[in-house]
Structure formats: C-alpha cells, structure tokens
C-alpha cells in the first residue's frame, strides 16, 4: 500500500509545472457580475480581472469549479459584495486575508445605518446594495481608493476612470428618474420572485413585494402565492416580473393564481437581479442592466 502512495505522490509532483505569473499585472478576482463590471471599468487594462460567477448565476447558489481554485490561488486582490451574498465564500475570503491577499468587501463602504435590515435578524442586512445608484457611487469611490493604494503607479489612471464612471452613473440617475417620474406613485408596485429590489424601491418610492424571502434557496409556499394574488387583485397591479437568476416557475404560478380570481396580470418581462446579462450585450453592464430593468418596469406598469 505504501508503495502505491509513494508512486502516486511522485506522479503528482512530476506532473507539476509552476505557473508563471503573466505580464506582471495584478490579478483581480471578483465575485458577482456587477462587481466584475465595476472593477473592469476602473482598472481598464492595467489589471487582469476575472469574475467567478457568470451571467445568470445566482450568488446564493454558486458552486465553485476547478478553474476557480486557480483563479483564487493566483489572485492578488479579491473584490466581493459581502453581507452574506456570497455565503460560504466569504469565510474563505476572510481566511485569505492572512495569506497576503488583499480582499475588498464593497459593502464595507456603505454606512450601516443606511442599509435595510433583515426582518428576522438585526445584524443581517439586505445584500442587494447595488440597486441604489447612490450606493454604487460610494462603492465606486471606495474601490478606486483601495485599488489606487494597492497599485500606486497606476493610481492616476484608476482615478480618471473612476471619475468617468461616476459621471456616467450620474447621467444614468437623471434618465432613470425622468422615466420613473412618468409613472404615478400609486402605480409603483413591483412584484417579483424574490426580495432583491428593496434598495431600488427605497430610492424611487416603489412598493416592492417579493414572493420569496431574501434567500433564493427557499421556495415560496402555496400560502405566499395566495396572499400575493389577493394583493395583486386589491391593488390592481398590471404586471409582475421574473428574474434572470431565479426560475420562472413561482412567478408563473402567481399569474395562474391571479387568473383564478378572474383578473388579468401579465408577466412584464425579465429583470436582472443578482446577476447581469451575458457579457458583450447591453445588459451585461451595470448601466445597461439598470436601464433595461427600469424600461421594463415602467413600460409594463404604465
């Protein structure tokens, strides 16, 4: 038996080739697609940015693949959301702090008093902070500052990119506000599969109702669906929405339940909640995603 083990261990080591760090650039690993997009906008080509989660991946249910090991192992900087959005991964990141890796939790930038707390646990906050553009601006400044400190020789470039990105966020804010203002306040009811849009609701006076709780891991019960159908009937909600990273099933069940009450509710379209659209498309960027969501919401609720 010992002989086998020795042979195997040798086989592993002979098979090794130490990977060389390419081109001297710092390696950044990001978690969600939103953060990947943000960091890419800030660093441009000065660092190599690799996202762990792809388009349409629900961060609550993300499973690491073999390739992610090498990404994390070679990373110099890790940028993640925090507030338990990434689940067990956050424990791993915290442990990595002791291994000469810089970890940045973007939620650290936000003042805790402005966060929406969980219904059940005082110390738990709603992690979907990116749906408030003001939060995203604060986060942009924070990430710029952190990365500039880490890579001083490119700091000027990061700051320039940061200013440029903040400008586009500011103009995004204006166009979004215009669109939403065309929708009367009493019509601002957003019904979705899970509670991802609370920050969005708070920023634009929407009444946000999620069919399931914060975690996408739990399933909506029959009672939840019935309650929600009644709510839709009473408030005469015109449209409900599906999310790209949550199965359509529950929302379709809700639509059926409303139909049973002789009311009509349409599925207004797909909103991007926990992940952006595919890379390369308009919805694959934070700004494109936000524009798409607001257009979909306003068009169907009008």
């Amino acid at each position, binding site marked *: 038996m010992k002989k*086998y083990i020795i042979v195997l261990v040798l086989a592993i080591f002979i098979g090794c080739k130490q990977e060389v760090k390419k081109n001297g650039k710092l390696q950044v690993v990001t978690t969600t697609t939103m953060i990947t997009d943000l960091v890419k906008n800030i660093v441009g080509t000065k660092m190599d940015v690799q996202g762990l989660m792809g388009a349409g991946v629900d961060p609550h249910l993300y499973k690491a693949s073999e390739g992610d*090991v*090498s990404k994390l192992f070679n990373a110099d900087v890790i940028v993640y959301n925090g507030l*338990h959005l990434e689940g067990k991964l956050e424990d791993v990141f915290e*442990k990595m702090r002791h*291994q000469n890796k810089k970890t940045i939790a973007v939620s650290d930038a936000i003042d805790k008093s402005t966060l929406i707390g969980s219904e059940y646990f005082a110390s738990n906050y709603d992690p979907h902070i990116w749906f408030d553009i003001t939060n995203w601006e604060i986060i942009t400044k924070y990430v710029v500052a952190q990365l500039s400190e880490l890579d001083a020789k490119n700091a000027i470039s990061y700051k320039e990119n940061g200013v440029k990105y903040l400008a586009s966020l500011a103009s995004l804010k204006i166009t979004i506000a215009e669109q939403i203002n065309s929708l009367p306040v009493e019509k601002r009811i957003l019904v979705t599969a899970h509670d991802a849009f609370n920050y969005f609701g708070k920023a634009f006076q929407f009444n946000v109702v999620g069919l399931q709780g914060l975690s996408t891991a739990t399933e909506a019960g029959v009672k939840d669906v019935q309650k929600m159908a009644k709510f839709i009937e009473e408030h005469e909600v015109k449209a409900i929405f599906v999310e790209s990273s949550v199965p359509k099933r529950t929302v379709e069940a809700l639509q059926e339940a409303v139909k049973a009450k002789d009311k009509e509710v349409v599925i207004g379209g797909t909103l991007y909640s926990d992940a952006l659209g595919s890379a390369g498309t308009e919805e694959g960027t934070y700004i494109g995603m936000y524009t798409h969501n607001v257009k979909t919401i306003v068009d169907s609720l009008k």
Partner: protein
Amino acid sequence: MSSAQIEIQLIASLVAIACAIPGTFLVLRKMALISDAISHSILPGLVLGFFITHDLGSPLLIVMAAISGVVTVVLVEFIQKTRLVKEDTAIGLVFPALFSIGVILIAKNANDVHLDTDVVLLGELAFAPFDRFLINGFDLGPKSLWIIGTILLISITLLIAFFKELKISTFDVGLATALGFSPVIIHYGLMSVASVTIVGAFDAVGAILVVALMIAPAATAYLLTDNLKRMLVLSVFFGVFAAIAGYWFAHWLDASISGSMTTVLGIIFLFVYLFAPKRGLISVLYRNKQQQVEVSLLTFLLHLNNHKEVNERHINHLHEHINWRRVQSKSVVDLALKNNMITIDDSIISLTEKGKNFTDKAIDYIITNDDSKIESIKEDFFLFRG
C-alpha cells in the same frame, strides 16, 4: 500545477484512503447504507457541539458528531432487535429523524451560521487549500490535510492492531464469540471509526463524496477479489485513483471537483461490474451460456451411451429425438467433435474411447457426487467447477 492543486489532490487522496478502510468492512458486512445514514445523522451532533463552543473549527464538534454517529448505530440496532422491521428500514427510520432534528435546531437557533444543509451535503474541496493551519503565523498547510491525516493515522493503527479481530468478526460472528472477542465491541469500534472519518472528511469534501468514497471503491474491489487484504489494497487504489483522475476530469471540464470525483468512481465501478474476470456481468453471462452448452453436451453423450442402435445415433435424428433446435444441436456436435469425444461415420455418431470415458466419469460424479474423480475433466468445463 500550483500548490493549491497539489494540496487538493493530496487531501482528496488521503480522504479516499481514510474512507476505503472502514468502507471495505461496511461493504463486507452488508452495511453500506449506514455510511449514508451516519453522514446525515451527524448533523445534530455538529449543531450541539457548535452551541457549546460557538466555534465551527473546534475539535469538540468532531467528537459530538462522532457520538451522534454512534447513537445512530445504537438506535438502528435497537429498532432492529425488536424484529418488527428489517435493518435497512431501521436505518431509513433513524437517520432522517436525527437529520431533521439537526435542521430544526439550525433553523431555530443558528440561522445565520453557515452550518446549513448545503454545506453539510456538499462540502467544497475547491476551498480547502485556502483554510490554513497557522501556528504563530507559521503556515503548516491546509487545516483539512491535518484533520484527515490524523484520522487516517488512527484508522491505520487500529486496522493493524485489530486486523484479526475485525476479520473474524466480519466473516464469522459465532467463531469470534467462541474465541473470546466481543463482536459487539468490534462492531461499535468500526462504527466509531466510520463516524469520525465521515465527520473529518465532510467539511473538506462533502458528505456525498464521503459516502461515494466509502462504498464505491470497496464494492468495486469486492468484484475482483475474495481476499480481505487484497480487497483493502484495491479499495485504496480505486479511491485514490478516482480522487486524482476526478480532479483532472474537473480541471478539464472546469466543473465541480467533488462531483467529478464521484462520477469517476461511478465509471470505475461500472467498468469493473461489466468486465471483472470472475464476477463481471459479461463473464457471468458467458459462463451461463457455456454451462448451458455443456449440459446439452452431457445429455447428448448420455444419449449416445444409452443407445447402441444405429437409427438413434443418426445425425439428423438428434434434434427430433432430444428436441433441440438445429443450431443448438450443431454447436453441441461441434463441441463434442472438437474434444474428440465422438466420431461421425456416414452420418452415424459413435462415442470414442475418450467420450465413453468422460461419460462414465460424469455419471459416476452425478451418482456419487465425489469431487476427486472429475479433476481431469474440470479443466475443460465450467460445468463441474464450483
């Protein structure tokens, strides 16, 4: 290959060896399902341990989990002794109950702690290298490597110390009792080792892979050998092979590591199940077919032996008389000809000296059931073996 990749393979290999040892005995004792049961029913132990220490890394968690593993076994035995239900039913009754107690304890008291069922069932081997064992800032390698290494060392020590006792109590409980070992103590000892191994490994690789590593290599090895020592070595070999091949499979597909290892284990088992020289599906089918032909051959030879008259021995008469299909009679005649047991003269079949001899011996064997007389014909035929 980076050091993280080496560490993952090393951890997975050690887990594979640590699982193969108790796994072999579980498979031999027809208790494979108990590993699945333990992997779930350790949850309440983990949760209670966490409530006491408030530290997920505390060794008390492993102790508590191992205790609830043993409690599972005790409860299963208890229910089974009532003789109202069978063992597998008893297992199926006990572990969901314990597991759900664990789930409820988490839901009520520790919802924001990452002790959830997902982590319990699907540990993340990918992150194991990032959880280091540090003493005064000095890096001693991944924590799980130390945990599983310690468990492995204990298992191997126990295996060597109690090999004889384990062997006898596994194969012959009566003899073990007569010789003065207590099969009950050995049984609980084995179950404790299995519990500790599962607990130690589940954080690193997840319970599903632990169960797969306990059962699949041992079940595969059992298809290939009857020798306990060889079975242990083969189990270890298959486990380690699956761990390393599974890793590279995951690397190639960029997929989940534990998932790929489990897949490789399944593929190995399927391959051996089909192609194992003695117990494989194909060789069993071949042997059955062969035995059928040989039974026919014997019938045919007896027929020739009994009938001296020429018309009974005509080649065209065969399938009419013995009621065989033409193809079958041809293959039987061919086999007999090949073995020089018959000659065909002008479509009349006669027994040769060898054929006569063989038939006599066979008759003798059928009547007396005495093995020693057929040693010489055993070589050529499956029929008289075993």
